[in-house]
């Protein structure tokens, strides 16, 4: 059992190398200062050991020059660490435009995944290598955290809001998926596999049996089942705002402010419609909190997103989007 244990995690994403580079830099700094301090302490303790009982040390009160030296040098070093760490964080945080979107819902104690083409998975996530993947994640109950050590990515999955995570897998293989935020009794059982596949193999897997309707189609069905369409009509103005071409557009609110209609706003407008009422409309919409599950919310949102014509609709997994360049400071705009 003690053979073949790794000392260092595999690097299986485009981001892993960046994280490891700053890690190694910090390990080197840590080793240098730890050895320096320990070496000096031991050296002084031996060199200046007490040689007779009444010996006392030399009276030295300090040195402003030395104090400044060992304040300024560590300060410069930590500022380098800060800037580097923040740069890597920005890259880890901002998904490129056009990333393949996948919905993830955490619940005690499993991960539920739905692809845009309708494939569903539990405790497994299949992704193609070489393509940015963005996970949009919500929780049905308590806090969870979606963690793929081989990709060096992690994000908390928080009830009541969406959090996201993105990566580009680089090496086909099977990797650990862990829940990293303590979530109750079977927290350590809330684990699974990330399966990174060559694009062709991934296409084959996507096309394989078991695919249900896409979330857009399921959302459309829910939209009429829940009678959303009686107020939010498509052809003409109903009692509620029209949802066509709404996604990612600014919305004027009754209180004079304006918000961007992103996933978080759409979610809030379904579970807590009184929170941000659109200018010119009455606060008559009932709450759907408790009536729709987290997964159904995601389906409704993907339907609303599909009503927007340009840019907003997520690239379905089945199409081949252009390869996103990595390591850029800002989100990459898709060029067609």
């Amino acid at each position, binding site marked *: *059992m*003690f053979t073949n*244990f*790794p000392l260092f*995690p595999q690097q299986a994403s485009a981001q892993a190398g*960046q*994280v490891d580079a*700053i*890690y190694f830099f*910090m390990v080197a700094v840590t080793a240098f*200062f*730890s050895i320096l*301090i*320990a070496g*000096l*302490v031991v050296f*002084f*303790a031996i060199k*200046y050991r*007490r*040689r007779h009982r009444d*010996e*006392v*040390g*030399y009276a*030295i*009160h300090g*040195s402003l020059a*030395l*104090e400044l030296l060992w304040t300024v040098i*560590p300060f410069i070093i*930590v500022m380098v*660490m800060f800037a580097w*760490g*923040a740069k*890597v*964080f*920005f890259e*880890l*945080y901002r998904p490129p435009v056009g990333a393949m979107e996948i919905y993830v819902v955490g619940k005690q104690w499993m991960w539920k995944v739905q692809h845009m083409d309708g494939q569903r998975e539990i405790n497994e996530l299949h992704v193609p290598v070489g393509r940015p993947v963005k996970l949009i994640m919500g929780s049905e*109950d308590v*806090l969870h*955290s979606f963690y793929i*050590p081989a990709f060096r990515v*992690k994000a*908390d999955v928080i*009830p*009541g*809001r969406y*959090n996201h995570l993105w990566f580009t897998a680089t090496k086909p293989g099977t990797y650990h998926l862990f829940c*990293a*935020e*303590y*979530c*109750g*009794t*079977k*927290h*350590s059982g809330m684990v699974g596999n990330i399966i990174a596949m060559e694009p062709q193999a991934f296409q084959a897997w996507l096309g394989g049996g078991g695919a249900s309707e896409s979330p857009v189609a399921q959302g459309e069905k829910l939209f009429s089942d829940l009678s959303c369409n009686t107020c939010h009509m498509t052809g003409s103005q109903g009692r509620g705002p029209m949802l066509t071409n709404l996604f990612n557009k600014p919305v004027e609110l009754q209180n004079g402010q304006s918000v961007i209609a992103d996933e978080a706003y759409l979610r809030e407008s379904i579970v*807590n419609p009184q929170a941000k009422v659109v200018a010119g409309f009455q606060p008559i919409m009932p709450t759907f909190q408790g009536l729709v599950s987290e997964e159904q919310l995601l389906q409704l949102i993907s339907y609303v997103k599909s009503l927007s014509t340009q840019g907003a609709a997520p690239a379905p997994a089945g199409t081949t989007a252009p390869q996103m360049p990595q390591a850029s400071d800002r989100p990459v705009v898709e060029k067609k």
Partner: protein
Amino acid sequence: MTDGSKYMATLNYLNNGHGLASWLLTKDHKRIALLYLISITGFFFLGGMFAFMIRLELLTPAGDLMTAETYNKMFTMHGVVMVFFFLIPSIPAVLGNFLIPIMIGAKDLAFPRLNLLSWYIYALGGIFTLVAALSGGVDTGWTFYTPYSTAAANGHVILAALGVFITGFSSILTGLNFIVTIHRMRAPGMTWFRLPLFVWSHYATSLIFILGTPVIAITVLLVAAERVFHFGIFDPALGGDPVLFQHLFWFYSHPAVYIMILPAMGVVSEIVQAFARKNIFGYSFVAFSSLAIGIIGFLVWGHHIFVAGQSVYAGMIFSILSFIVAIPSAIKVFNWTATIYRGSVSLESPMLYAFGFIGLFTIGGLTGLFLAAMGIDIHVHDTYFIVAHFHYIMVGGAIMGYLGGMHYWWPKITGKMYPEAWAKFAALLVFVGFNLTFFPQFLVGYLGMPRRYHMYPPEFQVFNVLSTAGATVLAVGYLLPMIYFTHSIFRGETAPANPWGAKGLEWEIPSPPPTENFAVTPIVTHGTHQYAPSKEVGVV
């Protein structure tokens, strides 16, 4: 001479009054310190047993020793007991209580009755927590994260939360008492810049006690209220915000780490000066770095929330402040090292602990930088890397400091000497056992093993076996001082007033001290630890 004067000569705080009531109703800061010593030692034992159960379970990848629910209760109770009932009160309530009045030339703290009340409040909070532990435990983790703690958790969340709430008042009152004492009770000539560094570090600690503790008290009360009355504060199903809890919790609990480490830094400053027979290098830098840590420490809590969807710009502010708070700690380490330069160094057991502290705190502090670096924190957040880091600070730092202080002042507290050879051996065991326990956790953490896991993938096993082996050595290292300290009370050699040849007011009075500390209020003419005749000397 009559027998009466002989009796007078040996009257001290320990034999001045007998019987349980003379202890339980005492207003003497030294006796109250011993009440704390006994109670925190009991909690240390309890918390240690929980830790050992955790390490035994993790010996194998499968969850085979106990159920998942029991395991979750073990690490929860380990954290709650160790943080709130051992680490936070340890040095301040025992050594601080005993020494601060003596070090500044006072007869007692400013409010002796309040001091006794603090201990009773602590004990009451402890009883709540003990009842929660014994009647089935809690499984929220010591962090009580919502909405798990308010909507889902098993066990006696409310009892445990009330225990934390109540014991918080003990911290607040102790902090208040220390601050007033340090301001108002200093002997003539004991100016601010002649104060022992131990007193400075406790001053900074007391500020955190007063400013931070009310926030955690309110927070756990809100958790209890949401659990009982279903107020929508943290649970999104009730309209609350779970991340709000994390902000409130870490607003106190990050500074609480400095509550644990600052007093230990004060102890190390004293020990290094005494055993190098040399005054501290850069007194004012060491003193003010304590205040800087106390103040900046209040502005870094957001680094616990980098992966919880916090705004990236807020994250950057917290990241840069978390890096800056490392600077005053680095200043202390460099000044301690420089203090040993051209000293007269004697490696008795307190100095071994101080050296252990410097080494382990350096590693603990530097690995803290990894967590301040946002890009790395994403990967290591909530893994064993964090567990290793904060144990280097809390166990390698705070407990090493506590043990060093206990060995340094034990002759003063009890009037008895402990066996030095055993003490050196125990210090070595603690150092080796500690590193064997926690160093492998850095490696397995970077590999990705999440914390609070009852089962884990088999490739992580070798690190966990090393860790458990280390914990066994560490346990022996902790048991030994309990045995020889206890033994020394009954059989130990009588300690002289100043066994180490150290400088400081506490070494100028008998061991153990008389109840009133000083027969005549001392007049202070210089700072502490002046060994060589003072002259201005350039460096290097």
